[in-house]
């Protein structure tokens, strides 16, 4: 339920605190050294791109919080049909 101040379009400090904490906690919990997410993103692109033509600029790799555990979520848009159609 939005508060009165939210309805008036003002962002109150509690809401700022919650947003900041959400980001901080995801980083704290994953305990990943800086740069790991970027490396992971690059390597994921390389692996997938060997088989499928992907839209490299639209790839999104992020940690998503679910309860107390985090999930690594990757969204890798595909440009065209597979280079090597599966024979299975």
């Amino acid at each position, binding site marked *: 339920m939005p508060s009165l101040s939210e309805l008036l379009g003002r962002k*109150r400090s509690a809401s700022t605190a919650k947003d900041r904490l959400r980001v901080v906690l995801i980083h704290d919990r994953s305990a990943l050294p800086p740069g790991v997410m970027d490396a992971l993103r690059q390597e994921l692109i390389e692996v997938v791109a060997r088989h499928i033509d992907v839209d490299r600029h639209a790839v999104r790799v992020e940690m998503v919080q679910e309860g107390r555990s985090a999930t690594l979520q990757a969204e890798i848009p595909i440009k065209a049909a597979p280079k090597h159609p599966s024979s299975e």
Partner: protein
Amino acid sequence: MTGRVITITSGKGGVGKTTATANISAALAAMGHKVVCMDADIGLRNLDVVLGLENRIVYDLVDVVEGRCKVRQAMIRDKRLEELYLIPAAQTRDKNAVAPKDMVRICDELRQDFDYIVIDSPAGIERGFKNAIAPADEVVIITNPEVSAVRDADRIIGLVEAEQKGPAKLVVNRINTDMVERGDMLAVADVLELLAVELIGIVPDDTAVLVSTNKGAPIALEPKSKTGQAFRDIARRLTGEEVPFSTSNGNNGFLGRISKLMKSKEGRNA
């Protein structure tokens, strides 16, 4: 008798661990349970003054660990409650004077004679914290609706889980309803959503707590105090009783949001 060991911890200092330990212990003893509370903050002893028992100390926890006295000799009986005892911390030593296995051994002895052993953990994540949670059957985390306290609580919840002492239970201390309503303080529901743990208590921000600490008389023993009631409710929940959360110290739509959160949490665990 096999007593339960409850450890009160927080990560960040100054959020109200010692006050909570004193009040939860007093409330449990006032319910008729046999309770011993233990100050595990070696070198920064405080539970004795909060309980008003500082003049009676002869032996302390380190004396027990190092064999200079029996556990029973280090226990101080409360002035008001016959069933409440305190084992004070040493003031002139540091945390390394006690090891986690010492705490386990002492608590195993205390379990024979007490219903509840309540341990006041030091702040931080080092030796003192590890000592305090080593014997725990249950861990209660105290936090304030404030960014640094919530962040540290999250870290502690993770460490408690890693030590296989979870799931920890949460007390949100010092809620100021006016500030929550103005949108300038995190609501209990916000803290719960961020930390994703079970709530076991909400304690209002109340200047009467300082007054009771000045006197060394736990507010949980004041029948008319709302804050005292909040601590008594926590004690009852710790004994397994279902005590509804009052709407007066939460925020608008608080109950609805809590029950929604609880349901989604159950769904995940299923």
